[in-house]
């Protein structure tokens, strides 16, 4: 039953995508393309853990706000004549499934001061613009938020 729900979610996603692309026309082509894309998607990325929409929506404003701060932070450092950057690396273990870890890495890369470079022996490699700031705490919070989206 869970599997059907996951498949239905993919189909709905690609239906919406086709609707936006074709501006609501060409239902016939869509009728062929949507099942094909859903099949491909399920084949490549089988739905093991469902994505919960509400926690995802709940974290969106915070994500947008923090990526705006990220842009401001980089801009400020770049335009400051003294260019205050103090780069370094941190590594920390992450308790998320594979997809979640990649999503966390992508999210961190858009947030102020952090940039992920994949994982190394189970630990996330994060480049920071200012190694004196406490990034680890912020990353833990984001990890918990993402953990509640899937699982």
């Amino acid at each position, binding site marked *: 039953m869970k599997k059907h729900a996951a498949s239905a979610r993919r189909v709905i996603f690609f239906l919406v995508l086709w609707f936006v692309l074709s501006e609501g026309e060409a239902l016939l082509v869509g009728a062929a393309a949507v099942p094909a894309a859903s099949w491909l998607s399920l084949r490549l990325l089988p739905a093991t853990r469902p994505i919960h929409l509400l926690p995802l929506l709940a974290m969106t404003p915070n994500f947008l706000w923090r990526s705006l701060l990220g842009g401001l932070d980089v801009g400020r450092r770049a335009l400051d004549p003294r260019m205050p950057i103090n780069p370094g690396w941190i590594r920390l273990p992450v308790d998320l499934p594979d997809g979640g870890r990649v999503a966390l890495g992508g999210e961190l890369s858009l947030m102020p001061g952090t940039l992920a470079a*994949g*994982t*190394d*022996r189970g630990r996330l490699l994060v480049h920071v613009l200012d190694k004196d700031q406490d990034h680890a705490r912020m990353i833990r919070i984001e990890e918990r938020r993402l953990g509640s989206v899937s699982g």
Partner: protein
Amino acid sequence: MTSWLISLAVLLLLSLGGALWRVWRGPEPADRMIAAQLIGTGGVGIVLLLAAATDWSMIDVALVLALLAAVAAVAFAKAQSADSVGDPEEE
């Protein structure tokens, strides 16, 4: 409005000149790729400005550019791996 949008596109295009300098200068392959991706994102912005100023159907070009810029980044990572068909993340 049209002249405002196109003037912005001119400024954006000029700023891509700075990125072009970084592509030329490098020094690392990753530096050149970063600058190329910057030109890709800037290109998406310019296409959207032109679309708003002249013809909305240009958005399709922005869509394809955004998609294929991501594909190019994947190809870059593959080609820089140890045997050129691997993944830099492999240990």
